């Protein structure tokens, strides 16, 4: 940091004062040279080529199979019902926290998750849309994060950690380099410990900023990315976004501002691991152009 006010500068990244684990990638380098500790978190990547058609419309039947694969892989249970029951209680008030702007979570995925929970014994009345202010999180005993994979012009990446920004009650205070503090929202009393599953809609991600989506930067990745460690899931998402950007331009195309939130969620807020070497990535399905 540059002074007492904790001003973060570009030089801090280059020095490794901040962003040591992902700074190189965020500023245009690679992650390959980092050390390789033992994996501590699991992330599941499920992809199916047929889940979107040429007009990007969702095939609900294939998406249902993908969701089943996600749930069974994440929990190690044989079916969705036992998987959900290992994650939530049937009397939990469960908040589904989807992305509602820029690159919205596909409604088909939200409805499949809702239906799958109901099939597992959770009453419909106990399942609610929890995206919004802090009172939405406060009213729930369990949360399922359902963000869509996207870059963001004020926070670098705007997927998992940013998905709870409205729970803070003061979203704009986490923009620009203040995105480093996004992890603290997950530790607020009305949020902490409630997230049972992070399930990222990576069917058609957005790899460049905004504030409005530019369709040139949307692509059919046809994936779901899930886990119980939000930082690990975000780290995998970040890797995919960076790889896609480099592929598009044929040269390093760093995210700017750098997504400080990912490493800070690990090191400062203790929410999980941001180091790819500590992440066990389990893959199911279509492998081409996985970017990770």
């Amino acid at each position: 940091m540059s002074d007492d006010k904790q001003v973060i500068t570009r030089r801090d990244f280059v020095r490794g004062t901040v962003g040591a684990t992902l700074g190189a990638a965020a500023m245009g380098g690679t992650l390959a040279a980092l050390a390789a500790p033992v994996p501590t978190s699991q992330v599941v990547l499920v992809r199916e080529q047929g889940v979107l058609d040429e007009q990007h419309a969702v095939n609900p039947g294939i998406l249902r199979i993908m969701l089943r694969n996600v749930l069974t892989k994440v929990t190690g249970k044989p079916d969705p019902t036992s998987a959900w029951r290992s994650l939530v209680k049937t009397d939990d008030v469960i908040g589904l926290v989807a992305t509602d702007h820029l690159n919205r979570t596909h409604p088909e995925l939200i409805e499949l998750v809702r239906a799958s929970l109901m099939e597992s014994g959770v009453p419909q009345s106990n399942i609610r849309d929890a995206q919004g202010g802090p009172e939405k999180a406060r009213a729930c005993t369990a949360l399922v994060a359902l963000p869509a994979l996207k870059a963001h012009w004020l926070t670098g990446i705007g997927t998992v950690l940013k998905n709870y920004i409205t729970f803070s009650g003061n979203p704009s205070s986490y923009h620009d380099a203040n995105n480093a503090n996004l992890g603290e929202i997950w530790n607020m009393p009305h949020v902490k410990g409630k997230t049972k599953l992070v399930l990222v809609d990576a069917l058609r991600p957005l790899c460049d900023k905004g504030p409005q989506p530019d369709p040139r930067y949307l692509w059919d990745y046809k994936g779901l990315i899930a886990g119980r460690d939000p930082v690990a899931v975000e780290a995998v998402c970040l890797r995919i976004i960076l790889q896609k950007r480099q592929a598009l331009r044929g040269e390093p195309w760093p995210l700017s501002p750098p997504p400080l939130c990912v490493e800070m969620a690990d090191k400062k807020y203790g929410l999980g691991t941001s180091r790819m070497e500590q992440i066990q990535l389990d893959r199911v399905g279509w492998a081409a152009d996985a970017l990770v």
Partner: protein
Amino acid sequence: MPCFPSMEWMQRARLALAPVVLGVSILPFASCKGAPTEGLAMNEASFNLPRSVGVWTQSGGREFVGPRDIFKYMDGAGELYLGYRFKRLEVQHYGSADQGEILVELYWMETSDDAYGLLSGDWGGEAVELHPPEPGSSLPAATDGPRALYGAGLLRLWSDNLFARVIADQETNPSKKAVEALGQAIARGRSTPPRPVLIRSLPARVGSRFLLRPDRVTFLRSHLVLNSVYFLSSENLLDLGPDCEAATTTYGQGPAKTTGNAKPARLLLARYANEAAATKALHHFRDIYLAEKSKGPRASLTGDSGVVAIEDGWMGFSRSGRGLVLVFESPDEASARLLLGEFTQILEKLEASRE
């Protein structure tokens, strides 16, 4: 040597686009030449858009969004437009029976420079000629770069103090033609001021090694926009704001994408309201970004200019009058001094000519 990337851009432009390619209903369309927003009520349209284009017809009335409401419209991301002195937004939807919707957004900005700045955030896409030649005339004259860019259903255009986005939710050949026709209708009759003076002053080449990357040129006033292009700091170290004008770009060593591992140098030019503001900004920057070299008994960088090796290459700064030049990631000291000298002279000439 001044920068004229125009021919390259024009070669990319879709010159075959004709204004009558679609059945554009212009009956209710009034020329929007000089379309003022001054004095308009908030719910008063600045000019008429075509009632229909191809199979798309206006659906619903015009929506209006002011600076206070921009965050509602963009759900927390209006800083981009406010950073370019946004005045108002007008939104018009077009519907069709079975070919999806087209959305038109008209962003009225304070000046042409502001609208240009919004376009300059991303030079990707296919250049579109907004003022196609009259039938029988020769090709249009070369311009100073694209004023409209199309990609994947989205047209972005700069037309005087107007920045517009026209987007089809289903990209097809007919929707592309409709989007481009709407873009032409928006620009028709409007003046075409030149690019911001700082941008026009960027030379295509510096010395024998450094070539401008026209597709990396951005005009800005806000540190949030700067950080979205080139992250400098979590704090507004350069005191950027609505009263400033700034340009940033890269100068590569050789043609784009043939430079191997040679890292491009990053340039930032800024002009402030007055000399005092520029001096204050330089001190702010120097005291934080180069803290170890500008403060304390061993300080070596305390004047209005300096060149120093830091972690990612040679960095230089120079203030002259109300202008400030910063060079980052220069490969060596001589290059940093070359770039710094070149751009300091350019700013001084601009001041002398009162541009």
